[in-house]
């Protein structure tokens, strides 16, 4: 197929030559009229000679003897011909554009092998678009001995293609064009000029309806000669439509159905299936076989064009006796006159390419990064920098300081003494140590892995890989950045905020202590005798001071809880937000960008499939 494409490229510079080529549209002196008209077996009088020995078989054999001498090569054109290039409808055009863009967008993500078929379809579509839109190239394909060449001759009206009992008979494709201007089309198929033919003049004139038909007789696809199969595969990729010729003996061959019909099920609209040699079947067997053939085609997934619906037409005929050939001719005439076959074929090619690409684009699941996944990622990063612990520590420290500030002096004194006796741990000594690797590396790594997994869940493999790579790329240097950030955003700057009641509380505490002192001094004065003895007031003052001090301390502690909590939460929030922002910039945004790219590509794929929105 690539060879054909190459040929096609080399052919383009030559195209301007074509008009100069002399060509006779009328073909006044057609070379060699057939001298034996009974060659084409249509209406042969021998059809009713009864027994088996010279009936259907004899005729079949005779039909094969007159070969070779009939060579109708395509004449050179005399008048400059105008080739009307093919135009695709707006829908197919936009699908092809979408496919081209899709291939372009995906180059970086998918390997060439995956995209090869789509690229080939685009190449072929472009190549076909440059060629005549007035012509429809129809290939006759089938197994050895199913009578492709015979049908070819019957349609052309002349024995162009060699038929015979020798298997396999036809070794190279032969083309026959019903009208002019198809030279470049046939060139594209790689058929050399010596194998290009014209139909019998009379038949062609009578068959004005077949104007625009280019019929190609293919070699068999199932013989032991492998190069035949290669030829068939190559040409089948280039023609606009195919007539599958099957016979009662071989119509259920696994090779035909599994290798050709099933993969080409999408091309149902540009296929005909013809059951040839019905003259070999007695009675109503032809109907039975035809029904069975229909059943098999249905099992292959081919839409049958019954009741005028688009799809594959299934016909029974005998190329030998001419039974049913007229119907085929009529169907072909309608088909060719529509001129829609090339576009439909390309459209089916696009369908197949799109179906082949489905696993790398479409997904059944909702994709994207959910809000929960983002939240979870932020939480994990906050854990990694220790936001919760830092917040709690800040809260407790603040509370501790508040207690200390509002506590009774006696308590503070006691605590101080106790602290001196305690063995020092952690905190104090750590102060001096440099902060390295504050962030838990493993938690960052795990957070990135989890978020990448969440984001790529349900994505086709190449895109999931791309998302994962984006996440990993973004996570490089993330722990270091978080380290730095933990130092910077660790605690709210400046002194911790103090509530308005603080001075009042401190003053009250001081005054309580003062009351104790005053009461104490008063009592002392009385004891020494400096003061008038009055036991009630100073004891009361002292009691107020002694009870009030802890009371105020206790109520301060209760009142300080709220501000402490706020302070701790503030510390936690700062760290958390800083970490989340860092993670968003480095990991979530690249991942989201990658997801967006995938979504764009999927929409593009949707356009290729023809759904429009791309939801699947």
């Amino acid at each position, binding site marked *: 197929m690539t060879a054909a494409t190459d040929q096609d490229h080399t052919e383009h510079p030559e195209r301007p030559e074509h008009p100069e080529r002399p060509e006779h549209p009328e073909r006044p002196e057609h070379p060699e009229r057939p001298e034996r008209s009974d060659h084409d077996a249509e209406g042969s009088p021998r059809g009713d000679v009864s027994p*088996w*020995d010279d009936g259907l*078989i*004899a005729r*079949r*054999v005779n039909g094969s003897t007159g070969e070779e001498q009939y060579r109708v090569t395509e004449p050179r054109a005399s008048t400059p011909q105008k080739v009307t290039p093919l135009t695709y409808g707006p829908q197919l055009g936009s699908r092809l554009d979408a496919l081209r863009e899709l291939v372009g967008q995906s180059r970086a993500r998918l390997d060439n092998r995956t995209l090869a078929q789509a690229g080939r379809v685009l190449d072929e579509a472009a190549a076909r678009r440059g060629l005549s839109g007035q012509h429809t190239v129809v290939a006759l394909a089938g*197994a*050895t*001995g199913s009578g492709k060449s015979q049908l070819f001759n019957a349609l052309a009206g002349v024995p162009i293609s060699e038929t015979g*009992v*020798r*298997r396999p008979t036809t070794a190279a494709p032969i083309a026959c064009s019903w009208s002019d201007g198809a030279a470049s089309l046939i060139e594209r198929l790689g058929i050399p000029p010596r194998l290009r033919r014209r139909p019998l003049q009379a038949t062609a004139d009578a068959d004005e309806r077949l104007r625009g038909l280019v019929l190609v007789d293919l070699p*068999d696809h*199932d*013989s*032991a*000669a492998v190069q035949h*199969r290669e030829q068939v595969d190559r040409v089948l990729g280039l023609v606009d439509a195919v007539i599958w010729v099957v*016979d009662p*003996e*071989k119509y*259920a*061959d*696994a*090779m035909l*159905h*599994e290798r050709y019909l099933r993969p080409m099920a999408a091309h149902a609209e540009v296929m005909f299936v013809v059951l040839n040699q019905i003259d*070999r*079947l*007695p*009675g109503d*067997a032809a109907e*039975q*076989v035809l029904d*069975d053939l229909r059943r*098999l085609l249905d099992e292959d997934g081919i839409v049958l064009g019954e009741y005028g619906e688009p799809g594959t037409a299934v016909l029974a005929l005998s190329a030998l006796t001419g039974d049913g050939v007229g119907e085929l001719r009529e169907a072909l005439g309608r088909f060719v006159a529509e001129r829609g076959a090339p576009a439909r074929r390309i459209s089916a090619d696009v369908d197949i390419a799109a179906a082949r690409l489905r696993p790398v684009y479409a997904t059944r699941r909702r994709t994207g990064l959910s809000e929960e996944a983002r939240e979870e990622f932020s939480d994990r990063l906050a*854990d990694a*920098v*220790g936001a919760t*612990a830092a917040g*709690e*520590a800040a809260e*407790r*420290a603040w509370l*501790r300081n508040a207690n200390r500030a509002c506590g009774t002096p006696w308590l503070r004194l006691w605590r101080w003494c106790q602290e001196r006796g305690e*063995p020092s*741990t*952690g*905190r104090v000594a*750590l102060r001096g*140590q440099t902060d390295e*690797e*504050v962030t*838990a*590396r*493993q*938690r960052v*790594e*795990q957070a990135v*892995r989890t978020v990448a997994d969440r984001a790529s869940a349900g994505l086709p493999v190449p895109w999931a890989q791309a998302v994962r790579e984006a996440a990993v790329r973004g996570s490089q240097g993330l722990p270091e950045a978080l380290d730095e950030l933990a130092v910077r955003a660790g605690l709210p700057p400046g002194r911790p905020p103090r509530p308005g009641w603080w001075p009042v509380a401190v003053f009250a505490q001081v005054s309580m202590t003062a009351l104790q002192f005053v009461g104490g001094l008063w009592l002392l004065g009385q004891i020494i005798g400096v003061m008038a003895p009055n036991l009630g007031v100073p004891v009361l003052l002292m009691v107020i001071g002694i009870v009030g001090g802890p009371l105020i301390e206790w109520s301060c502690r209760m009142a300080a809880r709220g501000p402490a909590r706020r302070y701790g939460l503030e510390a936690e929030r700062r760290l958390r937000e800083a970490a989340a922002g860092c993670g968003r910039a480095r990991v979530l945004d690249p991942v989201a960008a990658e997801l967006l790219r995938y979504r764009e590509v999927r929409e593009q794929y949707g356009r290729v499939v023809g759904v429009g929105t791309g939801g699947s």
Partner: protein
Amino acid sequence: MVTLDVRPQLLDALSALRDRVAAARFPLPLAGAARARANRDELLAQLDDYLVPRLRDPEAPLLAVVGGSTGAGKSTLVNSLVGRRVSEAGVLRPTTRTPVLVCHPEDHHWFSGMRVLPDLTRVWVPHHQDPADDLLLPGEDPARVLRVETADTLPPGLALLDAPDIDSLVSDNRVLAAELINAADIWIMVTTAARYADAVPWHMLRTAKEYDVSLVTVLDRVPHQVVSEVSRQYGALLTKAGLGHVPRFTVPELPESAWGGGLLPATAVAALRTWLVHQTLDPAARQHVMARTAYGVLDSLNARLPELAGAAAAQYAAALRLTAAIESAYDNEHSRVRGRLQAGAVLAGDALKRWRAFPLDCTPGELLDTLVESLSALLLCAVAAADERVDDAWRREPAADAPELAARAAAPESAEHRIGLAVRRWRRELEEYAEDEVRELDRGPAPDPEMVAALVATVLLGGRRARTAGEGLAERIGAHGALRLRDRGGRLLVEHVDRVMHAERERRLAPLDALEVHAEPQPELIAALSVLQKER
């Protein structure tokens, strides 16, 4: 001339070989695995259906299997040879869905039992019934049934088997056809004037040549005007393929052959029939035909078994590569975990913040909690990273696409669960150690065991960063006790981490181990073959 008689040693060697072949498995989807599986099944079928029964009972009737493409007229040919409609024939393809075996009534016992084709259920059809009727029991798989018919017209000592199409659209039929043909003493290859150049029958002819079996070809449905030409060309093709010596019979196309129900006139198949009867009745010819196929198949083992052994070796190599990928990934991660533990990576993030606040603003319980959590995060991260590396490595291995390997039961949550369990167990044991240590202490006020546990955990997990924790620990329980506790706790930690990593690695290896791809099949197959060769 080779003769065929019962030789127990040969039979023993052959059944040993059969067991080896049956034991060979190719579960990994390598490039040649499907082919190897098919070869194994074919070989097994041939040993069971043909070679062993034939060497055991050389006097059993000859079995001639009629094989060919769809529509070649196999059933018509069998019917005509028998002279009665035993196998349904028709224009619709595929016609023969149930294989039919026809033999002389005296030979019926040879085939009604399970001597040959033990996989196929026998169906007995009374004469008066129309064979076209569907006689299968409802539950029966139509493909695995053999209909046994008897006919007086066949000579005793000959059985004909009408096989399904070798290129049938129904793939089960194709497999069955190949199996049946492999069970034959005489392969009758039917092709037609329209088909003699088809690729599919030629595959079969080449197989026949490879096994050097007794082969006959029938060129069926030849229009009589072209008999000589077609026959000549077919002959030329056969000669070119090295099969020129194969007996060729030509059957003309008759209206009867087109409308399948009918029988061809006896004259049309007389030559083939005479040949078959001669092979059956002439003892020398019979010996020759039988020995040729039997020894041909025996000889073909020389090429087929090494191929199977090679495929088995490839399976083993692939399994080794998959295992190596898992082991190296987990080993890598394991050493990384050890390195990070030493570097004190666990004492980071939350744990580090707690430790900074300890003991003023943080209780020992909280510190222990965060340390445990941080340790499980480290282990989980290592396991997840190892899994990722394995997945990466496996993506490049075609063998990793085996469905058993793709469907991984172990969800990450459960790994988290398992690791959490293990780490919590470590914490409990560490706390017990700390309690022991504190109890042994005879100094005045005993320190809080939880505090000791938190400190020792910090020392173990914090690396250099937790130097002060070590000092604190020594102050509390004495330098000696601290050292001892650190040693015991450290050993405990290493043990638990090793156990977790090992368990996760084993979990990952389990599906691969379950496939049971071993090194043994290859040498065993070759050994069985060499024993067989010695017995010949």
